[in-house]
């Protein structure tokens, strides 16, 4: 009898281990670390909406108070600052470029700001500042990325859901996209990412899909589009965050389904992690994802005012 019990225990443990389930959260994956508390003082978070990780594995997070705060990998507060103006609204997108500077999508001031990691504003590198739909003008900026040649890609939504490309000097090069649900159109493009081919990945949040473009030529070409609305594994509801692991997989944070899904580059579902909730391993409307140098995935658990570090 004891032999049977032991064998059964081993079998269950083995199956669970093989499935990658750690008994916390839904789906496949396990939580390494959870940190962050709601609040206004230094080190606290109030509905954090964007996150970026630099090469030193420091996390930079902007929340709805308009603060950009830097943390170490385990959530220890390092320093922080504010963008010049926050009355009309707060930034919604952060990215580190290859020079180690922080690109900030200053959403409601129609501009992209560039900061050093210490928080010094590089005024001369600001792009935009005017509301409109002409080249170089913006409505609601949501994210910024740079490709290997240093070109900027900035996405926005509002009346003109589009992505604009700028040279490393900030000169307008091209734009693509409009408001709509056809391939190549967007409804609220939320996050951008660049892969090893310099393809631009866009989370088309309100169309519940991912689109990939090759914008290296005179005009942007749609490379791939996948995803459809739903709650089942492999389906998407309001994909807000996106991260590429460089190993052929893409990870998507869903604002609507409160989970993270792992797909192949071609959009084939691999696994998912997270269920709606407030406990460790549960998510409440996550906005952003980012990988650190050790391959751990950081999930910005927005409505839980915290960050969860996971592996899946």
């Amino acid at each position: 009898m004891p032999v049977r019990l032991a064998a059964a225990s081993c079998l269950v443990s083995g199956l669970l281990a093989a499935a990658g389930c750690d008994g916390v959260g839904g789906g496949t994956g396990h939580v390494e670390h959870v940190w962050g508390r709601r609040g206004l003082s230094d080190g606290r978070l109030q509905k954090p909406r964007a996150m970026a990780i630099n090469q030193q594995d420091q996390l930079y997070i902007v929340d709805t108070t308009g603060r950009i705060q830097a943390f170490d990998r385990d959530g220890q507060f390092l320093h922080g600052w504010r963008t010049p103006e926050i009355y009309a609204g707060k930034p919604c997108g952060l990215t580190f470029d290859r020079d180690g500077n922080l690109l900030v999508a200053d959403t409601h001031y129609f501009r992209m700001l560039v900061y050093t990691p210490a928080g010094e504003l590089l005024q001369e590198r600001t792009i935009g500042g005017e509301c409109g739909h002409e080249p170089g003008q913006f409505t609601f900026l949501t994210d910024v990325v740079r490709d290997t040649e240093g070109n900027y890609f900035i996405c926005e939504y509002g009346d003109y859901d589009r992505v604009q490309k700028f040279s490393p000097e900030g000169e307008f090069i091209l734009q693509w996209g409009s408001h709509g649900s056809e391939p190549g159109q967007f409804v609220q493009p939320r996050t951008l990412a660049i892969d090893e081919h310099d393809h631009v990945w866009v989370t088309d949040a309100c169309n519940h899909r991912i689109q990939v473009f090759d914008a290296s030529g005179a005009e942007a070409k749609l490379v791939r589009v996948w995803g459809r609305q739903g709650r089942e594994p492999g389906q998407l509801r309001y994909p807000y965050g996106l991260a590429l692991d460089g190993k052929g997989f893409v990870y998507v944070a869903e604002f609507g389904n409160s989970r993270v899904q792992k797909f192949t580059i071609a959009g084939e579902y691999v696994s998912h992690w997270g269920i709606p909730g407030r406990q460790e391993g549960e998510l409440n409307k996550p906005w952003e994802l980012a990988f650190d140098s050790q391959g751990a995935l950081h999930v910005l658990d927005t409505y839980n005012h915290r960050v969860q570090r996971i592996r899946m």
Partner: protein
Amino acid sequence: MSNLEIGFDQPWYLSLLALIPLLWIFSYRSLAGLGNIRRLLALGLRTLVLALIVFALAEVQLLRTSDKVTVNYLLDQSESIPLEKRQAMLDFVIKAVRDHRNDARGDLAGVVVFGRNATIEIPPFDDDILVLGGLESHVNLRSDATNLSAALKLAQASFAEGSSKRIVIVTDGNENLGDARSVAAALAEDGIGIDVVPVKLTTRSEVAVERVMMPSDVRRGQPMETRVVLNNYSEQTVAGRVRFSRRVGLNDEFLGEIDVELEPGKRVLSFADKIEDPGAYTYQADFIPNDAEDDLMTQNNRATAFTHVRGKGSVLLIEDWQNAGEFDYMVERLRANDIEVDVMSSDSLFTSLAELQAYDSVILANVPRSSGDDAQSVSSFTDQQVAMLVRNTEQMGCGLLMLGGQNSFGAGGWSNTELEKAMPVDFQIKNAKIRAVGAVAMMMHASELAEGNHWQKEVAKKAINALGPMDYCGLIHWDGDDRWLWGEPQGIVKVGNRRTMMLARLGRMQPGDMPEFEPGMRKMLASFQRVNASVKLMIVISDGDPSPPTSSTLARYKKAEIQVTAVAVGTHGPAGHKTLQKVASVTGGRYYVVKDPRALPKIYVSEVRRVARPLIDELDPPVRPEITYPHEILQGIEGQLPPISGYVMTTLKENPLVEVASVVPTKHDPKNSTILASWTYGLGRTAVLTTDAGHRWALWKDWENYDKFFSQLVRWSMRPVNDAGKFAVATDVKDGKVRAVITALDKDDEFLNFLNMAGSATSPDLESFDIKIEQVAPGRYVTEFDADKDGNYFLTISPGSGYAPLRTGVNVPYSSEYRDRETNMALLNALARMKPKDGEEGVLIDGDLGANDFGSLLDVNSFRGDLAPAVSSQDVWPLFLVLTAGLFFADIFVRRVTVNFDWVLPAVAWIRSKVWQTETTQDVDQVLDRLRSSKAEVSGQIDERRAAARFAPSDEDLEDRGGRSLDDLVEGQTASAENAAAGRRPATPMGPDAAEEESYTSRLLKAKKQAWKDQPDKQD
């Protein structure tokens, strides 16, 4: 930082534990058969079962004791405190929390601000206090009074469980509403500590106009003296001027100015005047200092008084500002018939009940509750103004008429208001045969507007109340998905009797950050298309950052004739406006940009009114209303009224006081087709004419009885005139009390005694209350009541049967907030000395809010742990019951089941052999040999027994039985036994045991044989 303990909610049940010794006494002997160990085990289990049942009965709880402290700061933002000190309070709190809050312990800090009311600025939270951009609660805070008790109650309600509680009050202690001492005593009883930071008021240069005194009732042309009492509270002479003015109806008249030099102390100025025209007059005196530094508080520089000169009837007609001049002809004809008429536009309405006292009747002439096209121009009757109209009739006896038109009654958004209650008809149609009229769907998107959730609930509440029972209403909010707040899956459902449910669900609404409008608008469109309503309206409130709907969706809205009104609040710059503006313009709806959330309810009422249009019944061809009752209004008018081409449908009130003078014969129920009805409401009279007065539907200008009809209608509604006696009313305000003295004379100037006088008063916030009037001398009656609010108090006195009511007013010029200039240390000391239950007294924190870094104010730690530790409890008795059930089973098991432990030693040996591989081979062989020999021995024994059991009868038996039948009986058994013996093992010779078995078998066979022998004999 918490400890766990066990406690009991009903500890007296623990006395049942005394049964345990009895249990032992009675059970010890009865369980003797079990052996010592099992008996003790069974007794132990029984004892535990009994103890656990007793604990469960005693409602055992897990008590968690915490040393965490929550401090709620109460900041007095009333006007009696200089502005700079009010602003410094928040900085003090921020520093105090940062210095003293123990983060490791999880201390919480919160902020409540108060004035006339109290509101939570920051709920208790385990973080330092950081406020971006100052106090937000100022939007809803009235600072013209100090209501410390309300703040204490609110703070108490906002404390979280599981921590010690302390309140820190920052105030000058000059409360003028409520009773802080009694509330604080209750808090102390609850273990809540109180620290006090007194705000020291320094001597300020201050002059106040204390009151204006004049006779309350004068005759035309009678000279009268108006006296003004001024008080200079400073220590030097203050120069300035006193300006006198008076207001009659809507007109202000400047009377003159006097230069004064005020020595410290009181001074009385007098001013002579006389009144030639009848009416209700308000006299006002203002003090204007030459140097503003000499008089820092301006709120106490004005006082007013009333007087009244009776003349011919006077009427106030209120018309819609968007349709000005609509009633000019009627006004002209009324004036021609000796009725004085003032016309007031709905965008510059009366602001006090006093203004209405000049009139004997008020006419609402096709005026809507709310009107306007944008957030700036939208104007409406506030709830308070509606209440003033109603009180003016109910308490003061003034007439109230409503004239019809497209903007009146239900079509004017007056449903579910106090005004509806005062009229002889209801404005809603409660008739199921009449088709549904309108459908409203609201979409709520969370915005970054201060108290956005509160305002969203407020506007939705207004909208729901403005709808009739046959209208439809739906509300979508974002909760991770676009959800209907009620009525899933239809969403837009008939209001009917769901109004209360809808209002209740609003309380639980928490609109989230909606990413896009499209899914919600599609959902609404589908629901609208299922609703059979004549007018369909969607209202969206948002900051404009969700993604816009597609053009095709907007086109479908337009095609379905569903207008979308967009209300932009806290929009993110110009980009935020674009989406909302487009949605409104494409669908033909309106677009409002709201800076001040207080405009929101007006907008919603104005918008919702648009769905009430179908209440209008337009008649083609025109129909003549029938006269159904010879009403005083129709005196001298014979037959039918002239034809009308429209009216607003209403529902006649089912009340015997209602008199229906005219009904229009239509296909509808006569109860919904009233044209003219009246009744008496309180002391006044109200009437409705549901058609208009000649602009569109009732083209009666050429009717010979036009003048007679309208003048009789207005005169019927006017206040009654008192000419049976002479009454004089004198009023005075002193020490927070209003005193009125009534002198009663008859026509011959003889005292009227033993009158059964009764009366009522209306306070500045329009609350009505009865007053007691007593006769104190011949012809002299007195009443007195508390006047703790600033503003106008109106008195209506009924002298008794046969006399018309008297009315008068008295003014309390300003709140005592503007009179107090010293810190009320007595109250503050008393509050700080309150000893909380199981804790230490509070501290009066001395210091100066104006000092740099707040000096000694920060020395006192209000997060100190001298309060009773917080204990939170959790019921665990259900768990104890489950445990009891388990132990009960164990008790039975121990008594009923004998457990054999013989297997233990072999098992141990087996485990040892498996686990400790160090045993030698020889040992193993020896063990195996032993096992083999044991096995052989046991096998031999088994074979012997089998052989013994084999059936082998003796020859003697065979002979006795007669051979054949016995062979038949045993053949099979013998054969099988022999086969088995041959096949498996060699035959074993019979031993003594076998012989013994054989003899037993023989005995059985003999017995059988004997039985068979006996049978034939018996049969024979």
